[in-house]
């Protein structure tokens, strides 16, 4: 009886229902906590591009975030957009970079996070730009903080979905992120050069300059993904950057 087809089918059906029910229960029960973790993680990533937050607790990060970060959303022309097609206000933190990545570059929304000196709302200390691209196995993304000259890298933070732990996943470590520190996006005449990760690790210092950093051993393809991500996204942000450099955006903001 136990080996009859009917028994097997009933057994499988019951097993599937029990296990499936268990999983959906766990998923529903844990969802609020997971969303909180994700939100905190994004804010951590934004802040960690400009300041040291590793020793901070979750609620400290959230309060520092609301104290120091001012966010706007711009389009590819560098113009601030405040409302979407339906007229609802756009909140930069809620802009889904991954969803926007699927649209054509001209149609995307580009959030910009301005980091203020803690306690002084008027002084912008850094501009933080989200970037998004393709790694080896899946999406990679990050936040690049620029100094007020909008050229020098103040800090970076990277993240990924499925890069290989120990290899490509190293882009999230402080060791790799620090390599970008002080590098420059533009050359002396103001052309966008971006910053490239070289192939292989422990390249001679002569190979490294303002626009090149040491690569990832065993993760050249992830490195290429990061290079492409930076190059394309700063191309998209170029209009905003040059407008801000000329002071156009700041004036508009003041008039408001």
């Amino acid at each position: 009886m136990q080996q009859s087809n009917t028994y097997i089918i009933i057994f499988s059906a019951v097993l599937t229902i029990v296990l499936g029910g268990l999983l959906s229960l766990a998923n529903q029960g844990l969802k609020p906590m997971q969303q909180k973790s994700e939100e905190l993680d994004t804010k951590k990533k934004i802040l960690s591009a400009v300041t040291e937050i590793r020793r901070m607790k979750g609620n400290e990060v959230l309060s520092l975030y609301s104290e120091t970060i001012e966010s706007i959303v711009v389009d590819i022309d560098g113009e601030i957009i405040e409302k979407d097609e339906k007229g609802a206000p756009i909140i930069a933190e809620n802009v889904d970079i991954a969803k926007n990545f699927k649209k054509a570059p001209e149609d995307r929304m580009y959030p910009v996070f301005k980091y203020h000196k803690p306690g002084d709302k008027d002084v912008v200390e850094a501009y933080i730009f989200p970037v998004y691209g393709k790694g080896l196995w899946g999406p990679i993304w990050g936040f690049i903080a620029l100094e007020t000259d909008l050229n020098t890298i103040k800090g970076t933070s990277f993240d990924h979905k499925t890069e290989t732990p120990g290899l490509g996943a190293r882009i999230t470590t402080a060791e790799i992120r620090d390599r970008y520190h002080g590098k420059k996006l533009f050359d002396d005449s103001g052309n966008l050069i971006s910053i490239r990760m070289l192939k292989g690790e422990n390249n001679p210092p002569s190979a490294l300059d303002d626009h090149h950093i040491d690569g990832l051993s065993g993760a050249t393809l992830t490195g290429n993904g990061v290079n492409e991500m930076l190059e394309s996204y700063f191309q998209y942000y170029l209009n905003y950057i040059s407008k801000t450099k000329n002071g156009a955006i700041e004036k508009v903001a003041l008039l408001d």
Partner: protein
Amino acid sequence: MSTQTIEKAVEKKPAEAILSKRRKKFVNDPLSDDNPITVQVLGICSALAVTTQMKPTLTMAISVIFVMVFSNLIISVMRSLVPTRVRIIVQLAVIATLVTLVSEVLKAYQYDMYKELSVFVGLIITNCIVMGRLEAFALANKPWDSVLDAIGNGLGYSWIILAVAFFREIFGSGRLFGWPVFEAIGIENFPTNGLMVTPVGAFFILGLIIWVQRNKTGYVEH
């Protein structure tokens, strides 16, 4: 004359001790003589991949032990119900459910760890050690024996990956659990070995562990 109360010894087999000699063997054997990694050479993939640092390795070890114990227990409890023709898929379903649970819990409470281990938590499903124990042990043994067997094999797996991670982290990054060891004892410029950070480093250490172990136990591959 006193009435003789005849106490007839009840012919009842005494319950086996919770940790009888036979049962201790389930736990002890996989630690060394029948180690899943060094002797059976299973679960190598994760042993190479997650062992660059102690912290993710520890999380991985705990997750694997959890999945093993509960899958062994569940399969053992329903071993007489499982139709033999679909037993592999039943085992897989149970393991996959447990792994997904681990992954969901990590996502909610240990988000950083969840991201770091992402693929490898999922890959516990295909970790041959887990399924191997279900097929070889849990399907034919009682629940408590199966739990012990799972603990033994889980610990056997864990101590090897933790040992590998120990050497890889200390020589590769000069740290233990992210704590800078060499700076603490006054060696400022400890030359870290880049090889240890790559999976190749894990092969070397694993090879050395197997060498030392087989030298001691006299195990020979036939």
